[in-house]
């Protein structure tokens, strides 16, 4: 692998006695899509918060290129080039769709000059071009997920952290969203880390997958390899299920 664009080294986050993220290493190559999976409560979203600066890590560092970004406040991480979306979408409810995206364009890396045009371009890119003056409350859930993505893209990041942008929408919309994520990488040259529960989407989109369980990274590799890893099966289905397929050939 060439020099990774994003590199997390032994990052950890403890809440009181609970190790939400436990010494996780992570590397993201340029133009790569890295899937993060794991059972509920495995620490996936906390890991995102550590990378995006929403919360400071207890230990470890995160590098973007050769710059340390761990411990930076969220808005500085955005200016450095890392932006996240939220699993439960959080549009600015008092702003229209266009204004929501403009906030990203104005306060992202490039500043207010030409922000309106850039916002319109991003809005069209995600397929919200005809909803510019709608309020977020009047969009469908899939529409709001697109808005969340558009607002993040408008900040012109290098690394995009997507937290379950596919889960919860109907299959046709999920298909469109997957297409959209592919084109984000292809035409915008971004590197993407995505948390996703919808397994077919992770399998189809990711170049590589890491698996978290109880805050620890338990597996890493190509999607097809990872799903066959007994440790991963055990994490999802329990110990006995993991042993069962191993016993079969014997």
């Amino acid at each position, binding site marked *: 692998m060439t020099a990774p664009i994003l590199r997390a080294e032994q990052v950890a986050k403890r809440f009181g006695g609970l190790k939400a993220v436990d010494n996780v290493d992570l590397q993201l190559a340029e133009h790569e899509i890295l899937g993060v999976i794991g059972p509920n409560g495995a620490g996936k979203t906390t890991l995102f918060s550590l990378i995006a600066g929403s919360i400071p890590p207890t230990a470890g560092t995160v590098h973007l290129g050769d710059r340390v970004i761990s411990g930076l406040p969220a808005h500085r991480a955005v200016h450095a080039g890392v932006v996240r979306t939220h699993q439960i*979408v959080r549009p600015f409810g*008092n*702003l229209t769709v266009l204004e929501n995206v403009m906030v990203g364009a104005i*306060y992202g890396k490039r500043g207010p000059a030409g922000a309106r045009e850039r916002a319109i371009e991003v809005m069209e890119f995600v397929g919200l071009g005809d909803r510019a003056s709608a309020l*977020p409350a009047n969009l469908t859930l899939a529409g709001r997920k697109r808005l969340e993505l558009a607002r993040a893209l408008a900040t012109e990041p290098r690394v995009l952290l997507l937290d379950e942008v596919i889960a919860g929408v109907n299959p046709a919309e999920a298909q469109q969203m997957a*297409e959209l994520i592919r084109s984000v990488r292809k035409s915008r040259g971004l590197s993407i880390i995505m948390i996703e529960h919808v397994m077919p989407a992770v399998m189809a989109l990711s170049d590589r997958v890491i698996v978290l369980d109880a805050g620890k990274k338990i597996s890493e590799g190509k999607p097809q390899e990872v799903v066959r890893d007994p440790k991963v099966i055990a994490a999802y289905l329990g110990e006995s299920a993991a042993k069962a397929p191993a016993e079969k050939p014997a």
Partner: protein
Amino acid sequence: MTVSPREPAAAKPRVPRGPVLPWVSRQALVGLVVVVALAAAWPALLHPSAYQKNLVTLTFLYICTALAWNWLGGYLGQVSFGHSAMFGVGGFVSARILLSVHVPFAWAWIGGGIVAGLYALLWGHPTLRLRGPYFSIATIGVGEASRLVFTYWEWFTGGSSGLSLPIESGLKARLYWWGLGLLAIMVCASYALRKSSLGLGLLAIKSDVEAAADVGISPTFYQDLVLFLSGLAVGVTGAFYASYFSYIEPGDMFGFVQSISFVLMSVIGGVGTIVGPVLGAIVFVVLRESLIASYPQLYLGLYGILLVVIILFEPLGLMGLFFRIGKLTGLVRPQVVAKAAPGGTGAVRE
């Protein structure tokens, strides 16, 4: 910029024409010029009595304080019950400047305003960093503590006997014009804070602080900035007030009643709107002069009843009524109303 592939689902984009955030719309600009011109012509044309002129000048000042309070309470959704602290600091600092060095009045006002803005930062910065009601509760303590401390600092404020300022002949007449000018500046600043890209950022912070930080806005910086500006503006107005009455005392300047009136004017007119505080201040002065003057023992209760009734039935005050009529007649778009909504009403949660 890369050429983006169109989503198959996307229809041909229809983006509304004209700026979404017009920098001072033409109507607003014309309206402001007309009002200022009328107010400027009024003394010469109708020869108002000293009482009337005094009342109008005071209304100018009240409008300024209401607008300044609204920057924080309305644009950011951080309600302050202690803005009298900055009003008082501005007044006394400017008075001390005027009493100790010979400078033009305007310099002393600006000096008082800057100190007031810094004072606001001193206590506001730590409490604004946290979401929730911390700031509002702190302001109650700040207002009260400031009044006590400044009343006891006799060497600075003259204690309960107050301070007398230098008097110049014809000052009051001139201050009518200065007041009008200050008002015009405050209205323009309100437009700038609301309609610029800065205003968009403030609306985002009001809606969702964390989501705002996640798209690159520094909530701390912008909240501090607005707090400073709000404190500065209230401080300048307090300084102006001091020069106008040429006598001030801490109990009045730092009084709880001052803080309540700043809140009330915005609530009457419409918290978070631009024109609301202007209307609210005018209604407030009329109310005070007609009702409260005859029943001075009832003013607190009346203020309280007004707050309760307005928040219960029309949280956006007069502007809310206006929006309601506008919606019925199709003159006001719902997008405009959404912006004035108190913090995060529109927040979509699954």
